[in-house]
C-alpha cells in the first residue's frame, strides 16, 4: 500500500455514506426533496438554502466504476440505443437506472427537478435531458455562457444571475418551500471556507516532498468536496484534513519514503483500474503535485472564493469562470503551465479519456505545446474513465516506464 490512509480516508467514507443515507431517506419518505445537479461549476448553495439534497449522477457513475460495477450498466445502455462512442459516464448512470441498481444498493429518490448546470460540457445537457425524460421529471437548463475571453462579461454574469433567480422561483413553485436568504448566505459562507481550506491543501503540494498526491489522493478529498461543499460538515472535514496534511508536511513526510519525480496530471483517471494505474506511478515514486481533474468542481488555488456578501453574483462567477469545464482550452494550457512552474514539476502526464471530448479533444495539440513550445517532458496515454474495455494495461505500463526512465536519464544528465 503506497498511499496515505489516515483519518481523512475514514472520514470521507463516512461523509459519502451520510450523503447516500440522505438520498435513501428522501427516496423512502419524500423528504428532503432531491434535485439532480452536475458536479462542475454548480450552484449547490441554492439547493442548500432550501434544505434540498443534491443527486449527482456523476458521483454515482464513478462509484460504479471504482467498484468494478460499470460494465454491465454500460452494456445495458448500449443495448438500449446508446453508441459505443457516447460518454460512458452517461451510459453507466442510465444503464444502472434501466437495470434498477444503485452504487450502494440503497434507493435513489425521484428528483423534483432536474437542474442542468450547463458549464461547457455539452454532454451535460444531453444527459440531463435523458434523465428528465426517463424519470418524467421537470428539466431546467441553467445556461452558463462559455468563458470565451479571459473574464466573463457583465452580460454573462447578469444572464446567469437572472437564471439563478428563475431556479429559485421554480423550486418554490414545485416544492412549496420558501427560499431562505440567511440559509443561502450560510451555504455560500461554508463554500467560501471550504475553498480556502482546499486551496491551502493544494498549495502544500508546492513543497518537496509533497505531503499528498494531488491526483490520486485528491480524488479521496473530492467526494466530500462535491457532496458537502456548502455544508458545515464540509468545512469541518477540510479543516481537519488541512491540519493533518500540514502536520505531515512539517514532519517532512511525502507520499513515498522518497520523492523521485513530481508530475502534473491532466485528464480524469481510469476509475475501473484506479489501483493499477496508481501503482504504475508509485513504482517510480512519482507524486502528482497538481492535476486539472481536481479543479472540475472548482478552481480555487488561484484565488477565487464565493462571498456571502455577494451570494448570487459569486455563485454566478463560480459557474462562469472558476471551474475547469467552463474555461477555454487555452486557459487549461495556461493552468498546467502554472502548475509546472509554481509547483515545480518534472513533467506532464496527459491522460486521454475516450469518453470525454471536453477533456480530450485536442490533447495532441496540448502535448505539442508543452513539448515543442515549453520544452516540458510529456507523456500521452489513452484509456477511459468509466469503461473497463479501453484499458490496455501492459501497453500503458510500458509507456509510463519508458517515460520515467527517460526522465531519470534526463535528471542524471543535468546533475552531472
Amino acid at each position, binding site marked *: 500500500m503506497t498511499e496515505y490512509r489516515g483519518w481523512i480516508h475514514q472520514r470521507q467514507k463516512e461523509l459519502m455514506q451520510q450523503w447516500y443515507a440522505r438520498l435513501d431517506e428522501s427516496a423512502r419518505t419524500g423528504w428532503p426533496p432531491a434535485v439532480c445537479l452536475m458536479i462542475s461549476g454548480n450552484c449547490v448553495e441554492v439547493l442548500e438554502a432550501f434544505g434540498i439534497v443534491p443527486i449527482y449522477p456523476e458521483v454515482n457513475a464513478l462509484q460504479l466504476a471504482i467498484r468494478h460495477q460499470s460494465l454491465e450498466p454500460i452494456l445495458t445502455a448500449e443495448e438500449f440505443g446508446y453508441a459505443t*462512442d457516447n460518454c460512458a459516464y452517461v451510459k453507466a448512470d442510465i444503464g444502472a437506472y434501466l437495470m434498477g441498481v444503485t452504487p450502494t444498493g440503497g434507493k435513489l429518490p425521484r428528483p423534483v427537478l432536474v437542474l442542468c448546470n450547463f458549464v461547457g460540457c455539452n454532454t451535460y445537457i444531453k444527459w440531463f435531458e435523458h434523465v428528465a425524460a426517463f424519470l418524467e421529471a421537470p428539466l431546467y437548463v441553467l445556461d452558463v455562457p462559455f468563458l470565451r475571453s479571459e473574464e466573463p462579461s457583465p*452580460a454573462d454574469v447578469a444572464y446567469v444571475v437572472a437564471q439563478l433567480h428563475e431556479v429559485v422561483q421554480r423550486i418554490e413553485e414545485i416544492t412549496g418551500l420558501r427560499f431562505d436568504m440567511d440559509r443561502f448566505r450560510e451555504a455560500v459562507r461554508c463554500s467560501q471556507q471550504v475553498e480556502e481550506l482546499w486551496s491551502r491543501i493544494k498549495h502544500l503540494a508546492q513543497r518537496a516532498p509533497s505531503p499528498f498526491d494531488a491526483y490520486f489522493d485528491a480524488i479521496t478529498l473530492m467526494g466530500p468536496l462535491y457532496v458537502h461543499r456548502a455544508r458545515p460538515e464540509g468545512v469541518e472535514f477540510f479543516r481537519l484534513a488541512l491540519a493533518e496534511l500540514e502536520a505531515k508536511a512539517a514532519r517532512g513526510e511525502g507520499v513515498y519514503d522518497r520523492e523521485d519525480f513530481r508530475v502534473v496530471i491532466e485528464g480524469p483517471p481510469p476509475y475501473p483500474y484506479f489501483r493499477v494505474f496508481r501503482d504504475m506511478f508509485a513504482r517510480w515514486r512519482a507524486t502528482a503535485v497538481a492535476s486539472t481533474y481536481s479543479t472540475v468542481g472548482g478552481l480555487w488555488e488561484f484565488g477565487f472564493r464565493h462571498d456571502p456578501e455577494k451570494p448570487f453574483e459569486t455563485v454566478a462567477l463560480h459557474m462562469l469562470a472558476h471551474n475547469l469545464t467552463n474555461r477555454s482550452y487555452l486557459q487549461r494550457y495556461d493552468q498546467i503551465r502554472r502548475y509546472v512552474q509554481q509547483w515545480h514539476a518534472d513533467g506532464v502526464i496527459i491522460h486521454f479519456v475516450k469518453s470525454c471530448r471536453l477533456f480530450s479533444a485536442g490533447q495532441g495539440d496540448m502535448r505539442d505545446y508543452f513539448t515543442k513550445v515549453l520544452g516540458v517532458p510529456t507523456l500521452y496515454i489513452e484509456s477511459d474513465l468509466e469503461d473497463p474495455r479501453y484499458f490496455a494495461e501492459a501497453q500503458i505500463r510500458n509507456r509510463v516506464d519508458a517515460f520515467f526512465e527517460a526522465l531519470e536519464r534526463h535528471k542524471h544528465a543535468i546533475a552531472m
Partner: protein
Amino acid sequence: MDELLRRCEEIIRDVNFTTVRRWKAEHPDGKAIAYFPVYAPVEVIAAAEMLPVGLHGAGDQLELQHADARFGSFICSIVKTTLELGLTGHLAPFDGLLFSSICDSARNLCFVLKRNFPQLYVDFLHLPHNVASASSREFLRSEYARLKAALERLAERRIEDEQLREMIVRYNENRRLIRRLYEWRAEEPHRIRAWELYVLVRAGNFLPVEEHTALLRQAQEGFARRQAKPRDSIRVLVESAFCEQPPLGLIRLLEEAGCYIVEEDFTLGRRWFSEDIPASGDPLWALAESYLERSVVSSVRHDGRRPRSRALIEKVRARRAQAVIFLIAKFCEPAYFDYVLFKRELEREGIPHLLLEFEEKMYTFERLQTEVETFVEALFFE
C-alpha cells in the same frame, strides 16, 4: 441545368476556396470570415462588408497528415479536416474563424486554431441553451453586439443598423427561396433530387448572398421546365447529418436504392429560420429573438419547451415520410445522444428507422448499400 449543378458541385468540393479568393480580389478591402457549422448570424458578417463562408470540413479532398495527431482517436473527421485545412495553408483566404457552442470537440477546435493561427481573428459565440428563459434574449443580443464590435474593429468601419436590416432582407429572401424549394421537393421528389438540392443549397456557403439567390432562381426555373416521371420509391426523412456532411455519393446511393429524401438536415444553417426575421426595429434584437423563437429544430440547439423527439415526429408527419434514416457522422456525440430518444419515440409511434454511420471522406459504400436496400425492400413489402 446540368451545367449549373456541375458548377455547384465544383464549388463545394473546392478546398482552395476559389470563389472566396475571387471575391477578395474584387473587394480589396473585404475580409472573409469562415464559420464552423451549424449556425452563424451571417447577416452581421455581411453587414460589415465581409464575406461569410460556411466551412464544413474538407470532405474527401484532404489526406490527414498533421491533424490526426493533434486530435487523436475517437474524434469526428470534420474537426480534424478543418484543422488540417489550416495546417496545410488552405485557410489562407480567411481573415477570421467563428465557432459556436455545438459540441465539446468543436469548442476545443476553436481554441486549438486560435493557438496555431494567432494572426487570425478567432471567436466563439455562445448561443443560448436556455431559450425558455426571459433573460436569454437580452443575453444573445449582447453576444451579437459583441460580435458586431469585434467585426467593426477588424473591418475598421462602423456597421450601421440600416446595413444590418438590408442584410436581413437579403438573407430572408435567400432562405425563403430555399424553404420553397424544400417544400416543392417534398411535393415532387422525382422532380428535385436530394443531391441536387444539396449541392445547390450548400454552394451558398461560398458565395455572396445575392449571387446565390440568383442561382437559386435559375435552378427554380430549370426544375420547372424539367420532364420528370415518378419513381418507385419510399418517402424518407434523413436526420443527424447537421454538421459533418455525408459524401455526395452516399446521398446519391440513398436515392438509387429507392428513397425519396423528402426532408433532411444537411447544411441546416442555410435555412435556419422557419419564417422571416423581422427587418424593422433593432436588427440585433430581431436576430436574437429569431434565434430563440423562429429557429428550426436541431440537435445542437436546446429548447426545454419542446422535446426534439416530438418535433421529429411532427416533421415526419408534415412531410408524409414513411421512414427515418439516421445518418450519423462517426464520433458525433450530439447526434448519437439524440438518437436514443428519437428511436424511443419513433418506436412508440411505429415509424420504421435505420441507423447508418458515415465519414465525410468515405468513398466506398457497399455495406451501406446492402443495408439501405434491405431496409427499403422490407418497407415495400409491408
